[in-house]
């Protein structure tokens, strides 16, 4: 390349960079000033394109690869920033104010965070969410695994069983919640009335309603977990199973000493999946009980949100009680819990896998 054309490119590149930058900044300034000029969007795009072409044309050997890398990563990073990073930062910011979804008047600092832990209803939500997670992590995995064992045996019509166990997972949580609400409130009450004369729906008291949510959740989720276990179980090498058979291992021994250790990584994945999804439980909770149920005395107050789990509590705080900033603060707290739990879980299970 001749020196002249390099210089030409440098000039062109610089001009593009500077012009692009100016257009970009100009468009943003116009936007922030609330200008009614409609061409500012086009201006922004042209500015961005100018900068990109300018950066690409910039005559450097040393940094060329780096520039190209950044340019190609840009769309993804940009999308990630717009959909995840910026909302997260904004969310944390709003949680420090008295934002009502429209605007905020005061900067409150950590007031939302301190007052949310003084709210017995919120503490209750945390507790029953944890309880729910523990129940489900165990039950969904056990049920899913048993179903998977069933569906990898030599039964007739396996395809049908697999499909039918998985089917509930294809129905949305809201629809499912309303179907089961009907079952609990109309069908089951008819039956219990015939048997014992008791007409109360199980959704009308907190403890039974909570059990109801667990049942529905297992029904919805076990099929999905089953599919993952089936994949794991079918990948256990045939020669190992054969060898164990020759050595005289019975079915139980094969299950506990061969199959389960061989699918440790699947168990990790499934535990992780059930843990986080149970934590985030929202739709079934909302459709089935909408958080109803009472607790006579918890931390000295009468609670009216007996089956309201964390996600629903956050939603109701923001939407139904119209307290967006508090809801946001709770959501930030929720995010932290989830992040910590997930990290710990992954770390622990990874270690186990290596040992096995």
């Amino acid at each position, binding site marked *: 390349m001749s020196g002249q054309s390099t210089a030409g490119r440098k000039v062109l590149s610089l001009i593009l960079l500077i012009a692009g930058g100016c257009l970009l900044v100009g468009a943003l300034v116009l936007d922030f000033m609330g200008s009614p000029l*409609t*061409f500012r*969007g*086009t201006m*922004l*795009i042209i500015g*961005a*394109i100018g900068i*990109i*072409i300018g950066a*690409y044309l910039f005559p450097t050997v040393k940094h060329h690869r780096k520039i*190209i890398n950044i*340019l*190609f990563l840009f*769309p993804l990073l940009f999308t990630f920033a717009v959909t995840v990073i910026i909302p997260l930062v904004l969310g944390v910011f709003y949680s420090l104010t008295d934002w*009502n*979804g*429209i605007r905020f008047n005061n900067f409150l600092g950590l007031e939302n965070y301190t*007052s949310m832990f003084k*709210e*017995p*209803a919120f503490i209750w939500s945390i507790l029953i969410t944890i309880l729910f997670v523990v129940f489900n992590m165990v039950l969904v995995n056990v049920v899913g695994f048993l179903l998977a064992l069933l569906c990898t045996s030599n039964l007739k019509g396996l395809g049908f069983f697999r499909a039918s166990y998985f089917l509930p997972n294809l129905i949305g949580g809201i629809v499912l919640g309303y179907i089961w*609400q009907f079952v*609990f*409130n*109309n069908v089951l*009450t008819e039956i219990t009335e015939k048997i014992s004369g008791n*007409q*109360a*729906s199980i*959704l*009308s*008291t907190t403890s039974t309603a909570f059990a109801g949510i667990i049942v529905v959740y297992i029904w919805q989720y076990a099929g999905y977990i089953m599919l993952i276990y089936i994949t794991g179980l079918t990948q256990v090498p045939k020669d190992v199973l054969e060898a164990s058979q020759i050595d005289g291992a019975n079915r139980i021994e094969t299950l506990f000493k061969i199959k389960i250790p061989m699918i440790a990584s699947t168990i990790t994945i499934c535990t992780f999946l059930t843990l986080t999804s149970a934590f985030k439980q929202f739709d079934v909770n909302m459709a*089935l*009980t*909408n*958080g*109803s*149920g*009472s607790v006579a005395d918890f931390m000295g*107050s*009468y609670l*009216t*949100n*007996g089956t309201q789990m964390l996600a629903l509590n956050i939603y*109701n705080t923001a*939407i*139904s*009680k*119209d307290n*967006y900033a508090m809801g946001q603060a709770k959501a930030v707290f929720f995010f932290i819990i989830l992040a910590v739990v997930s990290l710990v879980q992954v770390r622990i299970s990874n270690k186990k896998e290596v040992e096995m």
Partner: protein
Amino acid sequence: MKKLLALLLTGTMVLSLGACGGGGSDSGSGDSGSSDSGASGGGSTLRLVNGKIEVDAQLKKLAEMYKEETGVTVEIESMGGGVDIQGTLKGYYQGGNMPDIFVNGAIPDFENWEGMLVDMSDQAWVSDTDQAYVDEEYGTIGFPYTVEAIGLSYNKNILDQAGIDPASITGPDSLRQAFETLDSKKDELGLTAVVGYCAEVASLYWSTGNHIFANYLDAGLDRDDTTYIDLLSDGGQIDTDRMTDFAEMIQLFNEYSDPSLLVSGTYDQQILNFASGKYAFVTQGSWIGATMTSTDAEAYEAAGNFEVGMIPYTFEEGIDTILTNAPSWWSIYSESENVDAALDFLQWCSESTAQQILVEEAGFISPFKSCEYVASDPFAQTLTDWQAAGKTSAWHWLYMKEGLAQNYTGQVFGDFAAGNLDVDGFVSTMQQVLQSAYAG
């Protein structure tokens, strides 16, 4: 070669990025373009967010008529059926996509939009109604479009057959007596239960926690009497005597209600059974008329399209008013470019042509005095009678803290119905729950 490929790829990427972004800005300018051309064509485009999805078709018809008359297009955007309207509006606000006219239900909604709603005090319709929402600081910021009534609805046929004059029910004793009489004649009247009362918590909290609770706040009071709502707003206090009387009435409902619906019924079942003539009373207000004549029309016809009426919830001797109010209002967004056009549209809505559609087709009870149309709604007559007699109280429950029924009081009614609380337990629990609701 490699360089060429890289250039090609970069080019594609830039182009696709440009195309996406360009598409966005195109549609943006397209939007403003259409409204520009609309303005030059003699009219602009108005957007109205309606909170009553059941009258969507009628409002669209109204918009069509308005377009024929004035050339102004009105887009009706209906929400409802569980959609969180205020939440959606807040999203619109953040996205710079605010409608020109939108619905506001409870009073806290108006407070959220403080300073962003147009004061309509100088409009001609204001003097024609006493149902407009008037804010002390910002003037008339809510346009009323219908009136609804909360009262104890009854099936006149059944009361006649049982020989009960609804006018004779004036207090707790006569109410209990009427219930007992009806209960003893249940079989010959074909009743499943005397009263259709549901205290289901998950999806009917609004009936108990808002509408029935409203009677504690307002029944028997003058329209501007704010005694009990003031008490409530001041840290969630209640008047124990009045609440006890109120609780005794609820206890009566618990006793004489349909046991299969009391704790776990749904709105649909409740209204269907009333429309089928299986209950003498139902604890729902005038809005069920629309359901009875549409969804439940067959059952209602089979039951003889019986006449309905309303009596006050007489939990104390001398309570003689039902509660009527505009359940929600239309407000104009002050930063809209079409404020004047929106004002014209609302004025037009209060006038004869529009009122005919709103009353006769949408089944609204007109809040305007000049309106001469009568709705075909079964409850229209009884409502008009009560209004003419001046025996109405206001809906101060609209001033309650947001989410009170859903998150707090609905559950207390549910526990009472399930038998977990007695009358005193109901009062003290209500007291405790309201205090914690107003504290937090």
